[in-house]
């Protein structure tokens, strides 16, 4: 094997790993607006993309950035933008456009404390609900939450694959701490990666329907210049792509678009379940908080407590079935998160009937293993 065909061990900062993974995934267009704690992604992309024939552009704001990303993607190029809370808010309308018009794109949100300008340099997990519900109307989006630099790398590649395959925006929620953490990553050889490109339309031009509903959930995309001359719009459209408000046409189109992810759970779901089989106290945690939880659960087990950890890697759509089975023996579910309590509501819905305990922090500090361990102990003592 030649040297380039081998896995390389590299020390990488999380944000840099994200940029390198994007390039490895085939991203050739980046548009962004600087914001702490995400800026290293833009800076790295500005250096990397020109070397592979891609384009980097710093736009006038985050709305323009996602707009340019969608324009590039409509043109057929894999495209990404990165931001943090305030910028993520600004992107929401155009993210909705990507959902409705089914334009693949990857949006990285390196989370910081909020609301508003909040705590620019402090960690937070305050955007998990915004990632799901941030744009108006009924929405469809995938959100991934890596818990290490290595997972930032693998999940960023996966984000591009899912986005291309399902024609849906994919948000990667990165904790500020992991974004700025330097860890060793086994960077796979480019040849070893599985990369997925969207399906391109290749059927006859005159009968082509860009949004055909024909059993295959994800219609192929017409490449501009290939002769299809189709219409792309944020208005509700029929199979021909043209605007309509006819309920007879709107209902099946909305069903297809909104149900797309549910029908592809096999591709979308991703989670980790540790010691869940007999767990009486189940911790549900994601991102950096899951790392603390992993340690806390191990320590609790060492002390003879039946604790387990369920960690969603795909946060949205939420891995309901998986959590339900992981929580089968749970007497209490503990949800530690670095916000005032967001995912706990989803967990409460999925684990209806099981008491939910919360552990929250909104002071810009991380939740420690000790805090979680202590709460597991307290919960066990009260059973």
């Amino acid at each position, binding site marked *: 094997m030649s040297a380039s065909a081998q896995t390389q061990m590299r020390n990488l900062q999380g944000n840099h790993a994200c940029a390198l993974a994007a390039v490895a995934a085939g991203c050739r*267009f980046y548009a962004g607006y600087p914001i702490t704690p995400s800026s290293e992604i833009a800076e790295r992309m500005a250096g990397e993309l020109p070397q592979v024939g891609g*384009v980097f552009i710093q736009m*006038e704001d985050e709305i*323009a950035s996602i*707009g*340019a990303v969608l*324009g590039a993607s409509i043109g*057929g190029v894999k495209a990404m933008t990165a931001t943090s809370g305030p910028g993520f808010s600004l992107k929401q309308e155009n993210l909705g456009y990507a959902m409705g018009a089914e334009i693949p794109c990857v949006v990285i949100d390196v989370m910081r404390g909020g609301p508003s300008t909040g705590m620019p340099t402090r960690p937070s997990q305050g955007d998990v609900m915004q990632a799901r519900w941030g744009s108006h109307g009924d929405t469809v989006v995938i959100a991934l939450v890596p818990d290490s630099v290595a997972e930032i790398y693998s999940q960023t590649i996966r984000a591009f694959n899912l986005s291309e395959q399902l024609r849906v925006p994919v948000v990667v929620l990165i904790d500020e701490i992991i974004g700025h953490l330097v860890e060793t990553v086994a960077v796979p050889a480019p040849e070893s990666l599985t990369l997925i490109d969207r399906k391109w339309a290749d059927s006859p031009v005159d009968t082509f329907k860009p949004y055909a509903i024909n059993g295959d959930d994800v219609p192929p995309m017409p490449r501009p210049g290939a002769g299809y001359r189709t219409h*792309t719009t944020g208005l509700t459209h029929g199979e021909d792509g*043209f605007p309509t408000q006819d309920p007879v046409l709107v209902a099946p189109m909305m069903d297809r678009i909104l149900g797309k992810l549910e029908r592809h759970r096999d591709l979308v779901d991703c989670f980790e379940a540790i010691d869940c089989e007999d767990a009486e106290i189940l911790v549900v945690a994601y991102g950096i908080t899951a790392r603390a939880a992993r340690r806390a659960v191990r320590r609790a087990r060492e002390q003879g407590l039946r604790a387990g950890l369920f960690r969603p890697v795909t946060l949205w759509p939420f891995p309901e079935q998986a959590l339900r089975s992981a929580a089968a023996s749970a007497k209490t579910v503990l949800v530690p998160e670095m916000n005032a309590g967001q995912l706990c509501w989803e967990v409460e819905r999925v684990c209806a009937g099981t008491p939910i305990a919360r552990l929250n922090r909104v002071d810009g500090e991380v939740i420690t293993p000790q805090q979680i361990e202590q709460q597991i102990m307290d919960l066990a003592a009260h059973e």
Partner: protein
Amino acid sequence: MSSAEHSDFEIRDYLRTDLFPHFMCPGCGHGIALRALLWALHELDISMDKLALVSGIGCSGRTAAYVDTNTMHVTHGRPLAFATGLKLARPDLEVVVITGDGDCLAIGGNHLIHACRRNLDLTCVMLNNEVYGMTGGQVSPTTSNDRFTTTTPLGNHEPVFDACELAAAAGASLVGREITLQTPSLKDLFRAALSHRGFSFVEVISDCTEIFGRKNDLGNSTEMILKQKSAIRPESYGNVVDQPFRPGNWSTGILARNERPEYGANYREHIVAKLAVAVKGRR
């Protein structure tokens, strides 16, 4: 081909006639502007397969859907942002933006000035009807003083934007304005804009007969358009010299033109040059 020459242009060849009847009001100036644009594209022999029309939200933005080409109807105010990404990703496409006075100068104003500054090879067509037509006739950044709109029931008191001065000041390398009555001149202006390498901005003085015209008693569309004719200072008559004498009037024609490096080509050349130096340095 000059405008005086006969043209075999047939607008129906370029339209998605199966979408008819279209939704524009009778007499709306936006249709005339679209006709002139298609006429220019015809004369320049630009392939409809290679054209991309990116439009914003408004009656102006809705016109693009009727053209049988690659059409992208995006979010309000953002067509220039989408077009920037599309053109950078696909320099082989001819990318034209159709926008309105509200879409381009109010919600999209920031994107306009930065598109002008960058000088990417886009053609931006702003259909200025002095009003928010689509939403029922509210005031816009170009509504003339004392005009009535649904949000200026006592007449408009706000200062008015001169879009062409704004675009030129921000760096657009071709700027022009025309009224719809002079369709051949408008077509020629579009030809100049489409042929120009860099960011070109064309303001079309359009008319919203149904809403703005009615509200202000401006008569039918013919009357509105004729009034526009007496309210312009054509470039060919020396619109700059004329300015002191007809201060409230619109100068028309090509108002600014300069050769500046085109953003996309410049990006690619700059990068090739820098990478070459970097490789040399590494040896």
